[in-house]
């Protein structure tokens, strides 16, 4: 939000990318649909055949049915379409030949009626050919797009799976909006490519090969002249593609930041309004948005130049064919050892023009393909992030937890060299409640995050019932641990489903029982639709306290072997807290639990109290023993006592808070 756009993506643009590798990976995804592609190939051959045969048939209509009358009408038969023989010294200079007609035997004496009927027959055939062309193109399109869409779906699901696999640490370090952009925007570029572009490019390529083949088979020399521009076209395409891809990579990254800023600003819109920050946010978004626009404009400069360049090269080829052929014809010389007829020249001019069409087609859609490759690189880039916190290859399922948790000289750090925990050792016997106290930033949340293995220890070991958490599967571990976090995250779903999140197979009755246990049932009953009330995003519509109650119900429903409460009751009013306190007591009983609490009442009932300061346990014991020690815990406790002292009198009627000097 207060961004400096430059620093965000430097790392990414400079990464060298291997296009063929990206394409190979794509190919891997398309492999399961190889049968369809075989079908597509067949259809492509058929449709290309139809595409080249139709004009031939069209020509035959002229040669077989239309020319003879026209020729007879033009007494000497001078017509541009007629085959003109090279000038010879003797005989009639210009001679019409019927040899061009191979479609049907049409005697020169055929009546008008017969000719029209013949023509009608040919037109019907032509229509049949068109129908075949349409149907094959349709099928081709269908197989390509549907398989493309399926591939995309696979890719999306895979990316999602991977996102959930990535450790919390990765999510903390990366903007979620940018990661999301890969699943939506980058995937969308691929979608555009697989829908139309790919098929057009491939069938265009087919047509080019076909036309080239036809030209060479008619006259190698003339064909080579006509194809002389092809290498230049290939070079131009390669160069522009390379440039475009570079530019598109930048656009994908910029789009990622647009997405990131959107996600941050929309989810933080309440703060923005509370602080009248809208204008600043809008201005900041404008900047990111403009960077995206500019990157795109730069990219299209390359892609828009490609098509005209190729078209111009195509016209050069056309001019070359016409001039070279015409020159040979007029000068009566052979072209590279082959004679050129006017008919051949006209045919070649037609060929070169036909050549241009697929070249154009390809170059226009090339943009989409380049963009898709850039998008694909980003998706694969995310998939290639190896979660540094994975199940060990030989990980076993953690057997049902008894609850013996041991931390042995545990060190933890988020950033290299900045230890958050420095050699913490503790043991929680099954069923014990361990309270963790200490100043903010002492490492309390880090400590409890290690138990469900949100992070890995960087030194020492954490075992549960003797199993190192790194040796068991994450799922079996976390399923048996219930966590109520500081911020209770709710999904936009019904209250029922939000509680059921703790144990998806739970029945409605069990959900309601859990809600009762957490004392959430009272407020739920008062909601218009009770348990079926739909919550907004992150549980909007509920107060923080209500959300916390739901989070507690959720943990209760999970019935975990180990329970972790991170300031679970901080936002509940004291009466409600008192109510859930008893519920929590039931919940805590016979379960190993770790509680971060600022309310000393919770701490007093703990079997162990650990005072954490700067990543070390500086005091440990029970509440009573620590009080007796007069150490840091005592100091913390007394500060609380001091603050609360006015109410000490029981009715508290006579005094007001008398703040002690800081």
């Amino acid at each position, binding site marked *: 939000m207060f961004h400096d756009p430059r620093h965000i993506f430097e790392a990414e643009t400079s990464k060298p990318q291997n296009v063929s590798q990206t394409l190979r990976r794509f190919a891997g995804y398309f492999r399961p649909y190889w049968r369809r592609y075989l079908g597509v190939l067949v259809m492509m051959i058929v449709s290309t055949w139809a595409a080249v045969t139709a004009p031939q048939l069209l020509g035959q209509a002229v040669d077989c049915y239309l020319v003879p009358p026209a020729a007879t009408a033009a007494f000497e038969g001078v017509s541009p379409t007629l085959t003109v023989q090279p000038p010879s010294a003797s005989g009639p200079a210009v001679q019409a030949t019927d040899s061009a007609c191979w479609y049907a035997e049409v005697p020169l004496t055929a009546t008008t009626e017969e000719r029209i009927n013949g023509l009608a027959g040919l037109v019907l055939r032509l229509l049949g050919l068109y129908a075949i062309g349409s149907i094959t193109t349709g099928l081709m399109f269908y197989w390509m797009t549907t398989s493309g869409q399926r591939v995309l779906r696979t890719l999306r699901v895979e990316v999602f799976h991977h996102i959930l696999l990535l450790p919390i640490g990765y999510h903390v370090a990366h903007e979620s909006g940018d990661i999301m952009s890969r699943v939506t925007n980058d995937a969308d570029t691929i979608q555009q490519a697989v829908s139309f572009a790919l098929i057009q490019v491939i069938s265009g390529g087919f047509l080019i090969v076909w036309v080239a083949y036809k030209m060479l088979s008619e006259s190698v020399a003339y064909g080579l002249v006509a194809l002389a521009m092809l290498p230049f076209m290939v070079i131009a395409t390669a160069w522009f593609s390379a440039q475009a891809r570079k530019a598109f990579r930048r656009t994908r990254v910029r789009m990622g930041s647009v997405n*990131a800023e959107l996600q941050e600003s929309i989810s933080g819109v309440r703060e923005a309004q509370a602080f009248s920050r809208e204008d600043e946010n809008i201005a900041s978004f404008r900047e990111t948005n403009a960077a995206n626009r500019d990157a795109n404009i730069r990219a299209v400069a390359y892609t828009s130049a490609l098509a005209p360049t190729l078209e*111009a090269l195509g016209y050069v080829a056309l001019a070359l064919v016409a001039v070279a052929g015409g020159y040979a014809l007029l000068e009566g010389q052979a072209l590279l050892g082959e004679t050129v007829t006017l008919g051949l020249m006209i045919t070649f001019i037609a060929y070169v023009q036909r050549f241009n069409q697929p070249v154009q087609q390809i170059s226009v859609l090339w943009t989409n393909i380049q963009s898709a490759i850039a998008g694909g690189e980003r998706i694969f880039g995310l998939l290639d992030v190896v979660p540094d916190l994975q199940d060990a290859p030989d990980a076993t399922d953690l057997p049902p937890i008894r609850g013996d948790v041991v931390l042995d000289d545990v060190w933890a750090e988020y950033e290299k060299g900045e230890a958050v925990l420095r050699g913490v050792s503790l043991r929680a016997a099954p069923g014990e409640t361990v309270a963790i106290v200490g100043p903010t930033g002492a490492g309390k949340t880090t400590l409890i995050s290690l138990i469900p293995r949100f992070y890995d220890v960087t030194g020492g070991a954490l075992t549960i019932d003797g199993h190192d958490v790194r040796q068991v599967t994450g799922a079996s571990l976390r399923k048996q641990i219930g966590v109520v976090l500081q911020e209770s995250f709710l999904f936009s779903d019904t209250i029922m489903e939000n509680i059921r999140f703790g144990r998806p197979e739970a029945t409605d009755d069990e959900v309601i029982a859990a809600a009762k246990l957490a004392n959430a049932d009272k407020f739920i009953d008062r909601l218009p639709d009770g348990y079926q009330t739909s919550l907004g995003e992150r549980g909007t519509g509920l107060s923080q306290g209500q959300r916390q109650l739901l989070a507690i119900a959720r943990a209760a429903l999970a019935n975990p072997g180990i329970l972790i409460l991170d300031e679970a009751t901080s936002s509940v009013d004291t009466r409600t807290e008192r109510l859930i306190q008893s519920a929590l007591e039931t919940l805590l009983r016979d379960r190993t639990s770790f509680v971060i609490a600022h309310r000393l009442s919770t701490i007093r009932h703990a079997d162990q109290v650990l005072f954490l300061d700067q990543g070390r346990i500086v005091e440990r014991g029970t509440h009573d023993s620590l009080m007796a020690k007069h150490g840091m815990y005592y100091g*913390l406790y007394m500060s609380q006592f001091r603050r609360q002292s006015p109410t000490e009198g029981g009715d508290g009627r006579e005094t007001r808070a008398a703040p002690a000097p800081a």
Partner: protein
Amino acid sequence: MKRSPTSPAPSSLTRAIRYLGHYRRETAYAYGALLLATSAQLMVPLLIHRMIDGITRGVVAQQTAALPATVQAAIASRMGITLAQLTQAGTQPVQALVISGLLILVFAMVRGLFSFSQAYMGERVSQSVAFDLRNDLFSRIQRLSFSYHDRNQTGQLMVRATDDVEKVRVFIGQGLLMATSALLLMVGAIVILFTLNPRLTLVVLPILPLALGLFLVMGSVARPMFGLVQRKLSALNAILQENMAGIKVVKAFSREPEQEQRFQKAADDFLAQILKVMRLMTFLMPLVFFIANLGQAAILFFGGRQMILGTLSLGEWQTFSLYLMFVFIPVAQLGFIITQMSQASASAGRIFEITDARSDVVEAPDARLLPTVRGRVEFENVTFRYFGGGKPVLERVSFVAEPGQQIALLGRTGSGKSTIINLIPRFYDPTEGVIRIDGVDLRQVALDSLRSQIGTVLQETTLFSGTIRDNIAFGRTDAPMAEIVQVAEAAAANEFIQSFPLGYGTPVGERGVTLSGGQRQRLAIARALLLDPRILILDDSTSSVDLETEWRIQQALIRLMQGRTSFVIAQRISTVLNADQILVLDDGAIVARGRHEELLETSEIYADIYSSQLVDDSAGVTVDAAAAMATES
């Protein structure tokens, strides 16, 4: 933004296209280039024709050079040229050929230049339109009231600003230009055809309305389908967004398999909808191509018939059929564009749905700036219902906070405390009743002037990516460093900020360091303090800091609240003890009010809350403290 209900709404796509008006010059350039490039394209057959003619004439002239002049003249007239032209063609045939060749090259370059300009400017303008659309969407989203955001998910709003905008952009950048060029080509070709052979042209024409009708059907069928595609994509994105925001909870409960299933289901839904559209396209697109080809076949038959009957010459027919291509290729193109158009139209609808969304909290047209507030806040019979329905969350709440007073709000979870607090900066409007500050109805003042005088610490603290300094200066970006440090000190945050190696420059937010709940909260407090507001709102503001820090914050707050009207949702009696007025809420109504001493006597609920607090903390403290003192002595 209000549209009168009587005037017909322009279609969303038209509205989107009107954005081109912001870039008149570039657009004119793009379309001018398009015009030139298209007319150049229409020249192709002419150029080639001319060249072939030149060669043919040259060959004929060479061959007939020996023949008598009368025969030559007859041949020339047969070819539709004069003898002089034929002779000339024979004299410098190669030169003419080279000139024709060069002409084609020049033409190719010109055409290339213009089609580049057209494509580039078209894309450029479309990117600019996308830029505008996104900005408009973003501004609107930023300003829509809380209740709008209560109902809409971030993930799905994001799709509108990204994917939907992109769909519209692609159409404006490519489809619209392509359609224009196709139509231009088609009309131009039809005009040329008419001049060539009106009768034959009439044969072609009936096919056009057929194709057009098909397009209309296609468009109207496809549009809602595309709308659904975007909806499904939004649903997909919402799941994604939610999972990323709640990744900790998902992992904590190891619900990855269920979430993956959820996502997979959404992905399948999305796929199914796309496949539906694709199936329709598979059926319709070949049909369009077929119809285009049908026209060619029809011309071949009817033209051929005319030729056989001797009413049409081969040359005429050839030129005719060359231009015929320019009628039917655009038809096929339009078939392609029509899908792009219906897609864009569906997306444009979704975009304008947001930009047109009426915020429940609207500034009055004659809203005036709220002068510097003294701080008298008055609620008069305020009733509030979420989403305008259901049981009221607040019912007929009235109270007056005098300038400088400290108002404590008490009540159980969900009793309406947060609602009262959200009404003061006008995040929501009351369903009934009036709220006044210094006697001015909130609905009559400019929002900015109101909110900039209220400091708020909301229940949840969202930090934005940026440095700690940026986050404290959130409401006043230009605040000097000294002031920032000062408020951080007041919020007991300076100490932990300084403990970071980068101090105030430490990055926080999504990509920054992880702060604990207590640290985040102190930044939020500092953020509010920096505004030096006349009215201060603290919502659960000291709930998740440790006791020592809380105590220090309390001291800071007590000093801070002096002279400001402040509303505090407090769960600690100690805060309440200092209050000038305590409002005890239950079920959306004020059930008791007064100072601590009065309430203890008069209000059972208050006494209950109070005693629960005593039981909770102080009683234990008392006992333990006594014990502690006993051990001490």
